[in-house]
């Protein structure tokens, strides 16, 4: 094996983790493995959303500092990001509640795969809508600072692939466009967002059909359906004590 001095990126990466853990009260995260785009079922997409922060005079690192600190505040209403206590730092795990059509709440999470001064990346666990990661970055280009969100993903299983095809991609585009616009407006910029979508691989990975077992949407729905039963059971327990 090569011997080299410690790399500059050493503190920015999470340590290898095989199973995620998150605080109690959140489902579909603890015990799940983080997934890369190779582990999904659907077509592979790279989606890039960016906005110019011209006129704000903020450096990329200043933008990322604000973005990390206020990350959940820029999300569309109805979606919740339970930030880890240590904030967005390498190796931290956050739980998410995402608003889905039909009033369903999809509970899942993300691992902070990478975080440095100018970018951070979230990696999804098994059961998430997609297998892959999202990189949030800021950079200087054409005399302005830009903020960008880039998703590299495959829908995790056939159900999600169907959902992504019939409205899921549009919902995701709206989610990240809203986020960038809110960030830009928070920083005093106009918030015009451009989006670019590239299909990296049109092939679906049928060997990953079994991912449906972990589907967080189905499990969240079952969990919601079981809520009255759990409440009743807890009431009986309290009565017995």
């Amino acid at each position, binding site marked *: 094996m*090569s011997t080299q001095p410690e790399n*500059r990126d050493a503190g920015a990466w999470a*340590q290898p983790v095989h199973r995620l853990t998150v605080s109690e009260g959140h489902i579909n995260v603890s015990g799940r493995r*983080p997934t*890369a785009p190779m582990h999904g079922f659907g077509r592979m997409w790279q989606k890039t959303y960016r906005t110019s922060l011209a006129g704000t005079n903020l450096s990329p690192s200043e933008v990322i500092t604000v973005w990390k600190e206020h990350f959940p505040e820029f999300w569309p209403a109805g979606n919740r990001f339970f930030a880890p206590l240590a904030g967005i730092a390498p190796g931290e795990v956050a739980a998410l509640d995402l608003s889905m059509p039909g009033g369903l709440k999809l509970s899942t999470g993300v691992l902070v795969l990478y975080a440095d001064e100018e*970018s951070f990346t979230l990696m999804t666990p098994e059961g998430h809508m997609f297998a892959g990661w999202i990189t949030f970055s800021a950079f200087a280009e054409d005399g302005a600072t830009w903020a960008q969100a880039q998703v*590299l993903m495959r829908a995790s299983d056939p159900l999600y692939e169907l959902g992504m095809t019939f409205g899921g991609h549009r919902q995701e585009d709206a989610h990240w466009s809203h986020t960038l616009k809110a960030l830009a407006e928070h920083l005093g910029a106009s918030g015009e967002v451009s989006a670019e979508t590239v299909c*990296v691989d049109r092939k679906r990975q049928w060997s990953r059909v079994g991912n449906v077992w972990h589907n967080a949407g189905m499990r969240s729905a079952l969990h919601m359906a079981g809520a009255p039963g759990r409440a009743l059971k807890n009431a009986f327990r309290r009565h017995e004590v």
Partner: protein
Amino acid sequence: MNELTTQLEVRMPAPGVSVIEISGEVTRESDGALADAYQRASDEARTIILAFDKLEYMNSSGIGLLVTLLVRAQRSRQSILACGLTEHYRQIFELTRLDEVISIYETEDAALTAVA
């Protein structure tokens, strides 16, 4: 932030096998250079070895580029191997689960022996 630099050298040490030697940094800015190196390496190659001995810095955008390169190679029915990874970058391959889809060897010689 320092000026970002990526140097990529393409060699063909054996028939059907190309090596892309990656030096410096692999980041968002490496996209064009990596795509160009892959194009040059692909001529008549069924196996492409990525040699990371001189890699100094890689961020998550850089790992993303490796994933897209892997997909291109799979579409062209080519194999991708990696060698020369430090313990640090081996851990990153493990973390991102790239080690499940790219065979990793200690040295270029070991990778060449494996494909011979």
